[in-house]
């Protein structure tokens, strides 16, 4: 049964690779595709006041859980102030304090938010029992009339709310409404009326997230409690439900800003949008999970860069295996193409290709002269190593003189590999003639180019580094190909003479 075992193993590797990649993608939120961009909102609250030289304490209501948004990267800018975040029964407040300050003061509180449908649970806490609401005599009469009329013109709590909002915002207001509005601002009036009608209502504040807005005030919204949940209503249009770009800042109940020791306090908001890569975002916001051990971004940058290159090797190996087993291209030295491809990654393709061919050709020329000296093999290859080094140095200097940056391209080639290539090609030339040199040299370069294409593919680089478990899939592919007993593509050509036999 070893066959079945083998295929099971390949299958397990494949599934594990895909599964781990997917799990990690879900957990760390690193995108599967490179270059994916997300919009992040930068919301800034600016608190300004005049301090009077006494101890100052500023307390600002800040967002807790925001439905539809994920918040992160909270920051404050407040020179000289002590800062803390107080959590009072789930309601968070930013508190600044200083022993003494005078003159105009400005404090900043910033956070970043990213739209996320699933983030921020709804606040389901049931309303407090409605407190007794007091009206002045005339207002009480007006309120009851307004409510009675609205009740008559509606068939549900929601439609009654809408009706009220419509009346309050109407251009030509009824006498009753006008009377009530003369004592209470519209939103407060609506809250009061609705609570009076035994519909639990509260006022929440938030911001509409729009590009580049400054000096904004919080926008009030009504929330009525119906069918066991809070429903948001726009106090000017009566539309229900949270608008998609509405960022809930505070969920009501407490004051937005308290300042002691200062006057003329005011809080204003600024909003700007940033586009950053989803990967960056994931790295800054990902919660620690089971896979943090495998997170390579913890490593020092140099080590990361080295791993980046090394993790591309399996891809190169995959290309070599495919080209050799399925296509049947002959190369000089099995894995030389990968090493050449790695150098191409540093030099970019065309300059790399040109300088590689040039160096090998020049090296072959020197090598043919060298064969007259009758050197021992190890010494001869070492001689070539030194000669290749000389070629590299001279061409870099020359390139620098004429202003071409060949330095970059040439120095990345592994000198030893080039030396061996030259030696091998030279022997091949003597033994089998230039035809074989062209076939194997060309084959090597072709496979190197294919490996380069694969390794320089941004998706490949992204996946292999961020999801190293993808190598399990590559491993499965390589092992799978390793047991392929079918024909190679080149064999179809090799045995073409047999066509006659088939009567074609």
């Amino acid at each position, binding site marked *: 049964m070893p066959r079945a075992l083998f295929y099971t193993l390949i299958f397990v590797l494949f599934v594990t690779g895909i599964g781990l990649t997917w799990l990690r993608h879900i957990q760390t939120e690193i995108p599967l595709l490179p270059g994916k961009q997300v919009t992040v909102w930068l919301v800034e609250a600016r608190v300004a006041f005049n301090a009077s030289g006494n101890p100052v304490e500023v307390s600002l209501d800040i967002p807790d859980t925001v439905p539809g948004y994920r918040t992160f990267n909270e920051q404050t800018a407040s020179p000289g102030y002590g800062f803390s975040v107080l959590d009072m029964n789930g309601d968070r407040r930013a508190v600044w304090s200083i022993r003494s300050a005078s003159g105009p003061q400005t404090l900043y509180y910033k956070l970043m938010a990213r739209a996320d449908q699933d983030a921020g649970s709804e606040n389901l806490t049931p309303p407090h029992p409605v407190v007794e609401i007091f009206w002045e005599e005339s207002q009480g009469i007006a309120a009851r009339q307004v409510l009675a009329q609205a009740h008559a013109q509606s068939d549900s709590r929601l439609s009654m709310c809408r009706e009220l909002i419509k009346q309050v915002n109407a251009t030509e207001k009824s006498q009753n409404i006008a009377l009530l509005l003369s004592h209470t601002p519209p939103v407060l009036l609506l809250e009061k009326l609705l609570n009076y009608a035994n519909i639990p209502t509260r006022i929440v504040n938030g911001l509409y997230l729009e590009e580049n807005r400054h000096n904004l005030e919080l926008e009030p919204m009504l929330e009525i409690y119906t069918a066991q949940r809070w429903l948001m209503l726009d106090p000017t249009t009566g539309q229900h439900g949270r608008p998609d770009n509405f960022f809930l800042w505070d969920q009501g109940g407490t004051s937005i800003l308290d300042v002691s020791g200062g006057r003329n306090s005011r809080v204003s908001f600024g909003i700007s949008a940033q586009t950053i890569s989803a990967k960056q975002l994931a790295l800054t916001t990902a919660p620690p999970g089971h896979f943090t051990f495998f997170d390579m971004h913890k490593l020092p940058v140099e080590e990361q860069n080295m791993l980046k290159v090394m993790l591309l090797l399996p891809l190169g190996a995959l290309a070599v295996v495919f080209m050799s*087993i399925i296509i*049947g291209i002959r190369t000089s030295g099995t894995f030389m193409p990968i090493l050449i491809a790695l150098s191409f990654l540093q030099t970019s393709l065309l300059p790399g290709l040109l300088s590689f061919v040039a160096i090998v050709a020049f090296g072959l020329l020197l090598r043919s002269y060298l064969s007259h000296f*009758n050197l*021992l*093999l*190890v010494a001869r290859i070492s001689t070539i190593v030194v000669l290749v080094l000389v070629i590299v140095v001279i061409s870099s200097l020359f390139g620098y003189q004429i202003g071409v940056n060949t330095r970059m391209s040439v120095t990345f080639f592994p000198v030893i590999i080039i030396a061996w290539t030259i030696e091998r090609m030279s*022997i091949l030339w003597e*033994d*089998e*003639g230039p035809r*074989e040199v062209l076939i194997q040299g060309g084959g090597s370069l072709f496979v190197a180019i294919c490996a380069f294409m694969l390794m320089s593919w941004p998706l490949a680089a992204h996946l292999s580094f961020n999801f190293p478990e993808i190598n399990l899939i590559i491993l499965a592919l390589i092992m799978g190909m390793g*047991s*392929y*007993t*079918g*024909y*190679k593509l080149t*064999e*179809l*050509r*090799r*045995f*073409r*003479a*047999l*066509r*006659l*036999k*088939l009567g*074609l």
Partner: protein
Amino acid sequence: MWGIGIRGLRDLGILGMNARNINYIGRYNQRKLYPLVDDKLKTKKLAQRYGIPAPKLHFVIREQHRLRTIEQRLHNLSGFAIKPAKGSGGKGILVISARKDGKFITTAGTSLGIDHIKRHISNILAGLYSLAGTPDVAIIEELIEFSDLFRAYSYQGVPDIRIVVFQGYPVMAMLRLATRTSNGKANLHQGAIGVGLDICSGMSLKAVQFSVPTTIHPDTGSALEHISIPHWPEILLLAARCYDMTGLGYIGADIVLDGANNPLLLELNARPGLAIQLTNGYGLLPRLRHIEGLKRRHASAQARVDHILKNFTLP
């Protein structure tokens, strides 16, 4: 048309490289036995022990410093062949056919000084031609006066007969003829001509050069159609015995006929090439499967050859 379809190859029972490596070489050739054929010196000694005729060994050079006395040792030999023991694909083989004014004349007619000979042997010792680049030894063996039968069919080199032996059964054969393109070497990929031989009769089937059918030798102009190899059963027997000698299940035996038309074992190959199928016009697979399907293998080499002669007649 560019090539032949996969189905066509399959219908002809062509053995591909991957299938050969996994299903035949990998399955029937034990790794530990490889040195017996990869090292020509070992093969030669083994052949001696089993009484299998092979070209005579003059001497072996194992160390660089022995090169100093090489001139005296070569003194009595007019013709000889220098071979790396672990060479592959005919690499590093230098054949000297005559001496003239202290110079060595190769089969190609080039005259070489003793320095060249020394350098060549030195390269062999350093492992230049050996399979893995490991240090090697140089074998100096007798020059084979090959059969006159082939004189018209070969350019310079010795024509040899390649027989694929599977589980001790010779299953397919071809004659390899050196050409000017192949530099007098009998390697098909270098441009030697392969002539398929009917495994039952030793009669030529068809010829190919560089995978393309041909009918005449490009250098000698001889027609390649009606070649008949003498002593054919004897040659098959020699090939079949190589299995008993090495224990390798899938090998290529290279055999030459000397001046008296006696077969000599030149070398064995544990990874015989696939071009032999082109020269025969048939794939190896049906024959390999026939052997694999045998209920009882024949114990003696003669019985195996008889089985082949009886069963593998051409359709």
